[in-house]
């Protein structure tokens, strides 16, 4: 049990953790390989050139944004609630080691088992061990981002255990042997017809000529398939959206109820979650819940919000349909390093997905282009921290810093500032290719005389034949989708200096705001 030492370790200042300090076990590297094919620009190109994916994302762009806006408007004081939730989560993070220990005590006192895992691999081994202990061959899983992060499914499959994803989106992704492209809508990029084809391929025991054209038909079929899985499963694995230190509850939020079946039907229940999920009290949890569903899907509250606690073993569990053992696997997975770095604020994230729903870059390239578990702005901040900035250099750089993600983030995470922080690290580590240009511009901007001379020369040269060709070459990337705007032959500063315009005190001639004719005093005009 790592509990107290682990918690203690988190408090020790380790200095500013460089993102590369984040523990990267073999699994993380393997995962990174599994996720991304080629470079970021190749993946982005693939996303840009995929019309069906573009269509799907268009749906997010239009519907999810509008739904969230309506839900936030109906809430009234969104900003107040956001500030409150942020404060409570900041408080929880400030006393994180204490809260984790308190949670563990409560959870264990109710008959649960808590396992601490420093790395993803360790977590997978623990979960595999529990499965072996209860001789579980079939496992049902409800959607959980941390299990994606630690690549639990691949690990279990290697160990001969068969995990079945029971969230409809995740189920589709599992059948397609793909990775999620959105954290709350994992199969966002898959169209209805593709799902029908997929079901025809995999559900071979059903009549092949059945119609799967309607959403309802797809829903009914997947439901029947999954129900069988639930009944046969030996063990259920769920994530947790929050852990409540005050009561020892884990909060699980879904819209399909699959998490509830996963945690009640099998004999053993494993909750896998990360150490940053703990909040102090039930009130704090409910404050965050009020933000979560509204930000994610525009619902006032998700269809199923379950507070789960072990409630004792043996005698107390008189109902035959409840699990006999509840395990909780707390994964660090590089979060202690984040906790001790300048990026601590990212740990406030509640994984609602609002940032990616509103991100124009995400809308353009889709989730898979991000190359790892977390897409969108949160991925651009989190992925370099968890999987290395060198490999994911492009994520924090491919942002226009429009700030829409920061505007909608229910936990008020300064995502653009954190991305900029990554850029600073990359610049220091000499990863930025154009850093000499940037330095040069900075040098120029500190020398006004040189700066304006250069501007003057550029204006002059741009209108010569050589200048035009050169400009076309230099700005070739710009010119692929745009025409090239030419600088004016003379910059404003030169024109102004030559104009003979002189600053003069307003009001020396008739008041300017009466008819505007005042400012044209003859002296200044003559100076031209």
């Amino acid at each position, binding site marked *: 049990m790592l509990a107290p030492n682990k918690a203690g370790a988190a408090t020790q200042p380790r200095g500013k953790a460089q993102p590369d300090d984040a523990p990267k076990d073999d699994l993380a590297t393997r995962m990174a390989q599994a996720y991304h094919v080629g470079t970021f620009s190749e993946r*982005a*190109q693939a996303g*840009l050139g995929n019309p069906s994916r573009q269509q799907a994302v268009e749906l997010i*762009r239009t519907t999810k944004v509008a739904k969230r806006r309506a839900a936030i408007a109906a809430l009234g004081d969104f900003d107040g609630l956001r500030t409150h939730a942020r404060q409570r989560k900041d408080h929880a993070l400030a006393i994180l080691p204490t809260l984790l220990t308190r949670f563990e005590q409560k959870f264990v006192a109710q008959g649960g088992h808590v396992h601490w895992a420093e790395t993803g691999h360790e977590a997978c081994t623990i979960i595999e061990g529990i499965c072996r202990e209860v001789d579980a061959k079939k496992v049902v899983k409800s959607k959980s981002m941390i299990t994606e992060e630690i690549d639990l499914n691949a690990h279990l499959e290697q160990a001969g255990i068969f995990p079945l994803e029971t969230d409809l989106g995740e189920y589709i992704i599992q059948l397609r042997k793909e990775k999620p492209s959105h954290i709350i809508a994992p199969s966002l990029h898959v169209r209805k017809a593709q799902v029908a084809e997929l079901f025809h391929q995999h559900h071979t025991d059903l009549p092949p000529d059945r119609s799967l054209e309607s959403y309802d038909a797809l829903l009914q079929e997947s439901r029947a398939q999954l129900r069988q899985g639930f009944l046969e499963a030996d063990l259920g694995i769920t994530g947790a959206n929050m852990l409540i230190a005050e009561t020892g509850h884990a909060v699980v939020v879904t819209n399909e109820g699959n998490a509830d079946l996963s945690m009640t039907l099998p004999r053993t229940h494993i909750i896998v979650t990360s150490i940053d999920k703990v909040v102090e009290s039930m009130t704090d949890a409910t404050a965050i819940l009020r933000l979560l569903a509204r930000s994610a899907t525009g619902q006032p509250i998700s269809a199923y919000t379950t507070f789960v606690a072990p409630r004792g073993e043996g005698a107390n569990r008189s109902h035959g349909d409840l699990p006999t053992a509840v395990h909780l696997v707390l994964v660090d997975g590089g979060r202690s390093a984040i906790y001790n770095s300048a990026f601590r604020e990212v740990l406030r994230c509640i994984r609602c997905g609002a940032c990616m729903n509103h991100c*124009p870059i995400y*809308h353009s390239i889709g989730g898979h282009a991000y190359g790892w578990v977390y897409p969108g702005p949160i991925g651009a901040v989190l992925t370099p921290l968890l999987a290395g900035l060198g490999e994911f250099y492009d994520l924090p750089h*491919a942002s*226009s*810093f*429009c*700030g*829409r993600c920061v*505007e909608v983030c229910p936990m008020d995470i300064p995502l653009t500032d954190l991305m*900029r922080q*990554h850029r600073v690290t990359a*610049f*220091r580590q000499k990863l*930025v290719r*154009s850093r000499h240009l*940037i330095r040069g*511009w*900075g040098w120029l*901007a*500190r020398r*006004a005389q040189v*700066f304006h001379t250069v501007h003057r020369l*550029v*204006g002059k040269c741009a209108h010569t034949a050589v200048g*035009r060709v050169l400009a*076309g070459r230099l700005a*070739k990337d*710009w*010119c*692929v*989708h*745009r*025409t*090239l*705007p*030419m*600088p*004016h*032959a003379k910059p*404003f*500063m030169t*024109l102004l200096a030559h*104009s003979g*315009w002189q600053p003069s*005190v*307003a*009001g020396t001639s008739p008041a*300017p705001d009466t*008819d*505007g*004719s005042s*400012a*044209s005093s003859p002296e*200044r*005009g003559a100076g*031209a």
Partner: protein
Amino acid sequence: MPLGVTLAGHHAQMKVQASCLHLCCFWLVCRSQATGAGAEKGAEGGVLVFVLVFVAGCRKIFSVKIGFFVTCLMNSMRPSAAFASMRLIEHCLDAGETLVVPSVQTCCGQVSFNSGDPAGAYATALQQAQAFSACDLVIVPSGSCGGMIQKHYPTLDPGEEPQEERSAEQSKAGHEASPLQVLAGKTVELCQFLVQRHFDPNSFDAEASSLLAMPAARAAAHEVAPHSHDRASMPWRVALHQSCSSLRETQSAQDAIALLDRAATVTQVPVEGSDECCGFGGTFCVKYPDISASMLHRKCETLTQPTDGKVPDMIVSADLGCLLNIATGLRHQGINRPCYHIAEVLAGTWRHSPAIGEDAPMTSRAKHKGARNVGTK
């Protein structure tokens, strides 16, 4: 008055000291007048001269300096918008205020800041703070540069010295605001300024401005024969592109809407997804041209979308970066929709100058060249 002249370049704090000195001098002179030549007949005339000199001195000392930060992009790409901005600012000056354009201003430092070079950004910012140290108010005709100054300047630090030294230095400095904080506090975006001054576009006559009389201002109209934009009936239907920084950093997007609402020459048309980025993002559009272009296509679509069966006549924004992106993107797609900076529209000078990107003489050549280069990459 030499006293006033020498002190005009100093900080506001100095002005108070100067005015005290000024008052003392005046009092001494008056005394000598009264005791010495008091009995003479010409004394009244002498006093009158001194009173006049006193008033003029006060004017110099207490005159408020309004700085215009032209921004590097507007300086080289769109001088006509800068002149239009100056006209608007001059029009809105209160008595005693002076518009100044310090020639030592350069760039706001956003390029360095967003590229991960905070030390470079700090040094650049310091240069601007020094350039505008004499100004009581600084007006920026761009949400993006304005946002950089307002929002990010106070957070900048030299970045190289260790944390302990810096904190020690800070405690030594006490509560005194840094030059960057001072500049941030006195900077406003152009639209914000105009709204604060209750600017009425309908009572504004650009022809009457001191600047229009100058040949240089005419040269800023790109030395191209004035285009006739009167082909459509008034008022012009205008689609306003709100830049991300004006929405989220300077919070001046509403001011731009309010100003256009006041102008009788234009009517605004609603733009769907008006809070979405156009894909410019400074160096972003060059680093990731394809992603940027995909965003730009969406923006172009929404900006040219017809409302009530009519397409907007022109596209206006308070940010030149976005406008260059949108204008050249539209032209590349073969859509002829004039784009103007909001200052040009409010000042009415847009009628005399070609639209943004319209003067690019090398359009088609660059396009083919660029496309070929990238294709073979």
